[in-house]
């Protein structure tokens, strides 16, 4: 037993040092490689997206549009009820609402540009969201904040799931623009391995996710946890949101 441990430990020690030097070498050679790459963006064409890749993007844009519409209307409902009652909350809510309007507009633009059909249940999302925002705000301002916590938790997680897929599954063949030859990974710059269209979508989603999580922090700072009954409210709303996401992707 003892001998085994000793036996195990020695190579670990040795490898530790060797890794450092190897990492150093790798860093050097990858810089060289980066310099040797010839293609930087406007000189390449991208291959066609597969049916499944397109279908996933279709869903992403539809559900995100519906989600941001929901968020926009939730804050609208909260603002309608709370702004006059609690003037100190007004700038906080206004700031979050304006960010949601920006998100909503961005996805509206993407939806028309990329020719994705909007969710058929859009009117339902509007009514439901405004009802949820105004309803929780009518209970108390803490309940409204708890609603924000629940919604933003689900949205943040959902955006992360989307990013995970966009990160892994969108490598398409890249071709030289003039000759039409397929290029290998060594020849192209890492920034352009994925088409600008997909990478800008990724950037948008991760930026929005960060802002949603910021809203989550804001809501917690404003006593969301003091809402009664906190667990029931947040878990209930989370369930509703997950159901809505599931539906908006499909219908």
């Amino acid at each position, binding site marked *: 037993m003892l001998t085994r441990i000793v036996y195990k430990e020695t190579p670990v020690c040795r490898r530790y040092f060797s890794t450092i030097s190897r990492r150093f070498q790798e860093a050097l050679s990858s810089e060289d490689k980066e310099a040797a790459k010839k293609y930087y963006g406007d000189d390449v*064409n*991208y*291959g*066609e*997206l597969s*049916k*499944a*890749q*397109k*279908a*996933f*993007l*279709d*869903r992403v*844009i539809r559900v995100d*549009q519906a989600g941001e519409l929901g968020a926009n209307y939730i804050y609208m409902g909260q603002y309608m009820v709370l702004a006059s009652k609690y003037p100190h909350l007004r700038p906080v809510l206004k700031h979050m609402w304006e960010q949601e309007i920006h998100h909503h507009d961005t996805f*509206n633009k993407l*939806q*028309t*540009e*990329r*020719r*994705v*059909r*909007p969710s*058929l249940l*859009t*009117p339902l999302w509007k009514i439901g969201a405004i009802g949820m925002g105004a309803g929780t705000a009518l209970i108390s301002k803490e309940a409204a904040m708890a609603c924000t916590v629940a919604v933003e938790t689900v949205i943040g997680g959902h955006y992360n*799931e*989307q990013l*995970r*897929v966009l990160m892994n*599954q969108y490598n*398409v063949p890249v071709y030289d623009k003039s000759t039409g030859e397929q290029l290998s990974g060594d020849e192209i710059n890492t920034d352009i391995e994925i*088409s*600008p*269209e997909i990478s800008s979508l990724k950037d948008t989603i991760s930026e929005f996710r960060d802002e949603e999580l910021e809203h989550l922090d804001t809501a917690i700072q404003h006593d969301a946890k003091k809402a009664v009954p906190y667990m029931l409210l947040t878990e209930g709303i989370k369930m509703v949101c997950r159901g809505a996401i599931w539906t908006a992707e*499909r*219908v």
Partner: protein
Amino acid sequence: MLRTSTRSWTISRPVSTRLGSLFRSYHSETHPNTIVDEKSVESRILTKAIEFIPEHGFHQNTITQAIRALGYPDSLQSVITNSSNSPDFSLVLHWLKVQRQKLEQHLVDPTSEFHTIKDEYERVAYAIKKRLQYNGPIINQLGSGLSHLVVPYNVSQSLAELHSLSDDIAFYAGDMSHDLAWYTKRVGFSSIYVSSELYQLQDSSEGFRRTNAFVDEKVHGLKRLGSAYNDVEQWGVFNAISTVNLIKSQLLRG
């Protein structure tokens, strides 16, 4: 031990739904979106066959003629009969796709007259009329071609093609709707297109003058319907808000 979550999404999961298959999927900007794959043997034969349609109609004979004209062996018939569609229907569908591609190329061409029109609905009318003009060379065979489209077995594919056409028209006309108007417009354009095409079958006027007038009238009707709906909606929202304000003010008075 780290395990990847099984709940996380993977791209391989079949994602198309019944509704999804009716409407065109995601339109990419940096990746190519092909309507007709011009490289495949099947589409090369069918594209050649279009030349023989006025003479032989939407019929297997036409395809045979095309294969011979291209100098291919007759056994290549199997390329066409291999698919689950009948050869006749394959030809109709291919013809529709080629015309749709032609229309799209015309609409995106910066020199085309289309870009001088400003109004969205007039652009729609222009696109529909342009597309109907493409029926001209084969107008005598069009009736039999359309009859293949309404065979129950083929209906879902025909509808998908029809909606792709109306989606193209709506998109290039500059549709910016995000809600149910999106669906209303496309269904409206599809029905206008179908009824105008049926009208065209009976139209013997020069250059389909009467069909063009018919399209203009129908599109104008749809535009009126749209603005009527918007007016009613605006009126409704205004009244809802003023009711809320009225109640608020009454409550404040006590």
